């Protein structure tokens, strides 16, 4: 739920990512660490988002990620749908962190009821909970999708902005924050992804996220990567697709934590295994110990 202190800004429609990126790129230059980070206390809201025209977009998404053809929108697609609104929050002049160069650390999404193609949606997005990280600050971008006033989807994307300072002390006890992670050995794989050099452009085309670090080697070099890197959400959404509708059910939680980025082209070994009430997945560079991501898919 939107924090009570936040104001609501109504938009007529979901913004277009292209324009936002241009604005974000320009704004990124001026957003430098100075003092403690303060988030704008505002939530964006678009009511009446019509999904009836999304059939071709959904089909392209399903085809790329390996989701079966269905009129139920997968959580990854809802993330894509709401992403421009969250981005609009991040490119506000009073949002203190630079859009470009922020690192996606983890994502937690919950589907609380199936969302179907053709349903009218209300989409909300805001930023909250800025807190310390050993390399800067982390912040949650929250996106919600409601159908008929009922919360159907909530996604929390946690980003790192390096070099910034959080208000107050660093949050204790976050395993991703103290610089040490438990030893990890690759399990036996259950699948292998051969990701070509065009993987970032292909997911960019269906997600609208044409951030240059994903679409070109030059763009990636500008941010310190030797080659273009795969969208983290592409890898997570592909794992979600491979778990599949039968095992995740109508209502499910889908989490991911990102480690080293996937440099393209690359071969990623994947293990999807039963764990607890759901499934856990891992992705790492084939033949190496380089860990890329881990996450869970749990029916609710």
């Amino acid at each position: 739920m939107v924090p009570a202190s936040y104001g609501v800004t109504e938009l007529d429609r979901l913004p277009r990512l292209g324009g936002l990126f241009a604005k974000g790129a320009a704004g990124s230059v001026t957003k430098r660490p100075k003092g403690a980070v303060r988030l704008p206390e505002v939530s964006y809201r678009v009511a009446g988002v019509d999904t009836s025209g999304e059939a071709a977009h959904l089909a392209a998404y399903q085809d790329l990620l390996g989701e079966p053809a269905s009129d139920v929108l997968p959580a990854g697609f809802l993330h894509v749908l709401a992403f421009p609104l969250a981005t609009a929050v991040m490119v506000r002049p009073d949002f203190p962190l630079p859009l470009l160069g922020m690192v996606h650390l983890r994502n937690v999404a919950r589907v609380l009821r199936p969302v179907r193609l053709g349903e009218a949606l209300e989409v909300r997005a805001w930023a909250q909970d800025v807190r310390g990280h050993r390399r800067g600050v982390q912040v949650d971008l929250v996106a919600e999708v409601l159908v008929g006033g009922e919360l159907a989807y909530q996604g929390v994307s946690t980003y790192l902005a390096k070099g910034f300072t959080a208000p107050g002390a660093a949050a204790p006890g976050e395993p991703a924050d103290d610089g040490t992670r438990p030893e990890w050995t690759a399990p036996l794989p259950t699948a292998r992804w051969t990701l070509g050099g065009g993987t970032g452009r292909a997911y960019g085309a269906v997600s609208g996220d044409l951030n240059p670090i994903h679409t070109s080697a030059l763009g990636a070099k500008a941010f310190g990567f030797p080659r273009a890197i795969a969208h983290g959400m592409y890898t997570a959404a592909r794992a979600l697709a491979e778990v599949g509708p039968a095992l995740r059910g109508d209502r499910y939680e889908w989490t991911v934590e990102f480690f080293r980025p996937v440099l393209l082209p690359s071969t990623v070994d994947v293990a999807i295994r039963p764990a607890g009430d759901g499934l856990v997945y891992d992705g790492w560079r084939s033949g190496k110990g380089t860990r890329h991501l881990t996450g869970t898919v749990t029916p609710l």
Partner: protein
Amino acid sequence: MSTTPSPVPSTREAVIIGGNRIPFSRAGKKYVRTSNQDMFTAALEGLVARFGLQGERLGEVAGGAVLKHSKNFNLIRESVLGSSLAPTTPAYDVQQACATGLEAAIAVTNKIKLGQIESAVAGGTDTVSDAPIVVSDRLRAALLDANHAKTTSAKIKALLQIRPKDLAPVSPSTGEPRTHLSMGEHQAITTAAWGITREAQDEIALASHQNLARAWEAGFFDDLVTPFKGLTRDDNLRADTSLEKLAKLRPVFGASLDAPATMTAGNSTPLTDGASTVLFSSREWAEERELPILAKFVDAETAAVDFVHGHEGLLMAPAAAVPRLLARNGLTLEDIDFFEIHEAFASTVLTTLAAWEDEEYCRTELGLDGAFGKVDRSRLNVNGSSLAAGHPFAATGGRIIATAAKLVSAKAKETGQPARALISVCAAGGLGAVALVESTDNAA
């Protein structure tokens, strides 16, 4: 989730009269530019000649191919029309990856048992040498768009979508569509999970070659194989192979795993071309024609495993199917005289045997009270299997059924006691088909 098996309903018997296949040949050798239809027709025609079926209207011919061109939509019917069987013999195509041949046999024997047909042929054929090559999805989409377009400009616009890289042809692969791992890589994972050694796999491979060579020398295949294209024996057979030679081969699967890679070209089946057929009938039909009755096709079971979500290895479905089949028939592993376990890889046989000996696995995965049991190795693939003969995917089931039927027939004649063979075939998609073949009173 295991349920008590229903008793086998009483039906009439489906008997195995005999089999015929062409020699299996390594891909790219003798059968280059020989189609699936050519090979299946040759195997079928040999069967017709062997049992005097010229002009006969059989109840049905069923079979298939795994690597199949879309133009072969009626592959088996076209083969029947090209054979000496009566053109009034119906036919249909079956496809269940490597279990195609066995599944075809299950289908036609069930019809015989139910009295819907009196006689049938089941089999399969596959060629890697003449495999269909298709165009890329992008080229296909552009061509279909152009085809559907109504105006010339729309047709041109559709064709302009085509990029040079879209023109590269696409060859069939043995990769699993959902995991993108080849079958060999999948089995390498299962092999690592069960800790199967290189030595144990090479021993299985050696035994396969030695057993198949001995069977050929003894004339076992004289009434099971018709020469084709100048080939009289399976040309993958290496009678002179040895553990030393097998030990020299480099591993080809599992190189990216932490566990040592153990699977080589020697202990994995090669890509092979070939075709096989088996003749089944009711007892009455065989007796009326004074045809030999080798054995009964008693019962069968299929299974599948969830390999996509790491629950089980790709080729482990038979490990689940066999206990269900034997329980339904009131049998245990000790009651089986011949184990015909398809050697997709030597380690497939070994992981299956290991699973049945593992108490924990049998309890949690198979729903049994304890370990299923130990297979007497002296009863395993006694006349060789796919590692030596080769494995033209859909043709393997027919090869095994004919071998099993001959083995139980001979054993029953020799001992005066009924003899049983268990057939187990793993398949892509996490599938498995298994069957029980038993000698008949005639033979005993």
